[in-house]
């Protein structure tokens, strides 16, 4: 409890202002009894508004061709990176390490989402090894499977087509979940390797594609548009990421 009339330092106020939602709420509470702090907050709001008014419109300008060309060239360039590029890449990777470590602490530890990945990996561990009953409803009855899972999740879901990468849908099953039941879609390739796509309702907390790993299985997971999804398999990380991106597009694009 602050003594009456005193105020927190500008640094501390800024930490709260640019902190979590809870920090911001606390700051506003503090400001109700602190006129000087309230004036600081108003000033900072004006500053932010002015900076956005000055610089945000740049993002609406047409992007110069030389910038889009760099990405377009990369889209068509399938060659292996040159030795020089690898050296640059290695240097950048070192530079980025510290950043990634810091960012992991700050942002990438999504406890709720990590639980999602763990649940998905546990489901994979349980069902992917099943020879006789890996799924409840087989892919031969896909229309029924889709209708059933969509109804139980309360949102339309569509099994992504991963056949371009050699994985065909073999079916799916319903699992208990947190806020809704969860769907587990099982895929298999010619070598008998299996992939599981775990889908459940998950409001808020949208994330980037994130990686999780346990002995014997890896997962890429994401939360978007009210769905929490994880693709689990015992595959090389790059292969799995590629498949996860395909699954992401397959699930969200109509």
């Amino acid at each position: 409890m602050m003594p009456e009339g005193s105020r927190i330092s500008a640094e501390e106020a800024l930490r709260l202002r640019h902190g979590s939602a809870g920090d911001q709420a606390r700051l506003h509470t503090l400001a109700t009894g602190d006129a000087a702090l309230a004036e600081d907050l108003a000033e900072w709001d004006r500053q932010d508004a002015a900076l956005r008014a000055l610089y945000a419109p740049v993002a609406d300008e047409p992007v110069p061709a030389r910038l889009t060309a760099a990405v377009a060239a990369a889209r068509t360039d399938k060659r292996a990176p040159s030795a020089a590029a690898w050296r640059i890449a290695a240097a950048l990777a070192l530079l980025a390490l510290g950043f990634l470590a810091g960012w992991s602490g700050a942002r990438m530890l999504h406890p709720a989402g990590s639980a999602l990945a763990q649940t998905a990996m546990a489901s994979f561990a349980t069902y992917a090894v099943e020879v006789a009953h890996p799924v409840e409803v087989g892919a031969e009855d896909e229309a029924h499977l889709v209708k059933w899972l969509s109804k139980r999740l309360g949102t339309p879901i569509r099994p992504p087509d991963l056949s371009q990468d050699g994985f065909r849908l073999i079916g799916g099953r319903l699992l208990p979940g947190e806020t809704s039941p969860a769907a587990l879609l099982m895929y298999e390739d010619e070598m008998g390797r299996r992939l599981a796509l775990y889908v459940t309702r998950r409001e808020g907390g949208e994330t980037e594609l994130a990686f999780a790993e346990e002995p014997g299985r890896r997962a890429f997971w994401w939360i978007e548009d009210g769905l929490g999804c994880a693709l689990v398999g015992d595959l090389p990380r790059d292969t799995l990421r590629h498949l996860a991106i395909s699954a992401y597009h397959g699930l969200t694009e109509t």
Partner: protein
Amino acid sequence: MPYLDEIEAAIPGLRAFARALARDREAADDLVQDTLEAALARRAQWRGDGPLRGWLCRILLNRFRDGLRRNRPAAVALALVPDQPDPPAARKAEGRLALAEVHAAMGQLPDDQRAALLLVALEGLSLAEAASVMGCAEGTLASRLARARATLRQVTGREMVAQRHGKAGE
């Protein structure tokens, strides 16, 4: 979102950040181009689980600092801030001029302070995220931010209040 799509989607925002940082259209787009090329060269190693936008900002900031070291080796960190702002009478309450003042004031900030302020005010990062991007401690970031905001307030005086109230005239 696939890596290349994500990079492409980040270009407009990166341009805004670079323009505010470098304060020159061509120099800013050069920075963005350098950043894109570095990010693309490294894409084979991207692990797919990092926040790309923050990483791009960090590359861009490093390129910006490298460029400063090459171009003006002396007096990089010590941009001069006037002790006294211009007399208020010299300024108009009109909105556009107030923004011009803010832009001028931003130019007087040391680069690290300007970058810190832009990361939270323009990019909308939290203080912790901005500290990660700048590769500094959160306390350092908070201190840069406090100094940047104090200078901005001093240099622009109260004119931004007038801007807010004079909006109807625009």
